[in-house]
């Protein structure tokens, strides 16, 4: 079957998502490309959404893709000059009632619960992107050994502040609600408060460290 519209002529690695979203493949350099794009004045772009090895640019209605945007999408990245990013220290308590999946995850990793917690808290994470809920961070940097698939049966109720593991990512639930990630602990940090002038604690590229209570 003929598949029209997959690519803009002359440019590889771009795909359209509806007629408003331009999806750009970023390889392993999503954050670097994201930071380059947000540093530019791109009047035709309404939103820039980083994700897993891709970025979605949502174009304004009627926008025409300018030479400036093409250049920003194709410009080589200078990976040495990463902008300094904020570091958040998140105090967390692990295991017990607030971390119902910790025991099973530790067993899966062949670690004691103490060692699992120590490894989780020793790593430095990077906010790769946000999604699922307002302020929900996908934290890259989870040690290989601690990775675990999502639960086969999602929970109907995951409390706000729950520390979670989903595949290669660590995460924190900003708000209570249903959720399919493995739950290992809880923090009192507020990740999303729409009443504040800057409602979301984390931004893409921020660094995060956990401190076990």
């Amino acid at each position, binding site marked *: 079957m003929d598949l029209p519209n997959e690519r803009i002529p002359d440019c590889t690695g771009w795909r359209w998502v509806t007629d408003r979203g331009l999806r750009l493949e970023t390889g392993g350099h999503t954050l670097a490309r994201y930071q380059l794009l947000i540093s530019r004045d791109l009047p035709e772009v309404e939103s820039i959404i980083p994700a897993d090895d891709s970025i979605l640019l949502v174009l304004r209605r009627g926008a025409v893709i300018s030479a400036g945007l093409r250049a920003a999408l194709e410009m080589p990245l200078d990976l040495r000059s990463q902008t300094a990013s904020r570091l958040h220290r998140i105090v967390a308590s692990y295991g017990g009632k607030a971390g119902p999946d910790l025991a099973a995850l530790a067993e899966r990793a062949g670690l004691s619960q103490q060692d699992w917690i120590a490894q989780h808290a020793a790593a430095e994470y990077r906010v790769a992107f*946000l999604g699922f809920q307002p302020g929900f961070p996908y934290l890259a940097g989870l040690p290989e050994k601690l990775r675990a698939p999502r639960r086969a049966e999602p929970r109907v109720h995951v409390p706000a502040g729950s520390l979670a593991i989903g595949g290669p990512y660590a995460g924190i639930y900003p708000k209570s609600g249903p959720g399919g990630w493995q739950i290992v602990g809880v923090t009192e940090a507020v990740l999303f408060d729409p009443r504040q002038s800057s409602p979301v604690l984390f931004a893409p590229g921020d660094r995060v460290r956990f401190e076990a209570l």
Partner: protein
Amino acid sequence: MTGLAVVEIVRAGLCDLVVDQGRPGYEHLGVPSGGAADPDALAVANRLVGNDATAAGLELAYSGPALRFPQGGTVGICGACFTATRSSDTAVKWNETLVLAPGEILDLGAAREGCRCWLAIGGGLEVPVVMDSRSTFLPAGFGGLQGRGLRHGDVLRLGETADPKRLLRATPPAELNDNCLRVVAGPQAGLFDDAGLAAFFSEPYRVASASDRRGLRLNGTALSRATTELPSQGVLPGAVQVPPNGQPIILGWDGPVTGGYPVIAGVIRADWPRLAQLRPGDEVRFVTIELEAARALADAEWKIGGRA
């Protein structure tokens, strides 16, 4: 000026939401742009009452509220026609400026066809601005009136109005009376086998009851493909995701900003007004349109003029 004017909710509808043109630009923080499902219809309703197009109004779905105007006011309603009465016994007309007397009640019933209409009130609805918008975002409970739909007994404050106003009438864009949604191929269309693609573009799908502003769930021929889960990618309203059960979901205005299911196609922006009027049980068909043709489509035009 009437800075203290209010509107009272005498009876709530099924889902009455305060909305405006949305909050684009926060998707990277996990917050969708949201806003009116048919932003142009709300913008025109606003113009009918002399408001800025960006003022907040109400989005009413399935069945509307009864509103009392203690100080009177002006109202404009665009979108699907609902049954409606006024306590003054004056006819309630869509797409024109309505002038309500002090104390008058505007009582909206069920949608006659379609799903949603947008109701603007002179002065606009004065609810707090959250992340640059007054739109309600139900999934996280913020924006609009305390992050929720309207309830019996709520009182909404109105902004200042600039009197006197002209009485206006609007003409909606020509109605498309088939059930087709125009789509461009999605970034993962190539993951689907020929049978899946053939089904998607030839079989009808029915809107399922579990549909809301987050997404329109469809039932029909299941779409099979090789991969089930992908790395999360940015998504936006209109993207058609296919979860493991093969039943497509058209992401809506309050849908997620990233998703891990393959996107087979994307409903074009020009067909949002049609998406906004779909309700459970409706049948839809997908037809392809060339990307360049979709992007070159002129915005469907509402016409506004004086009312005799």
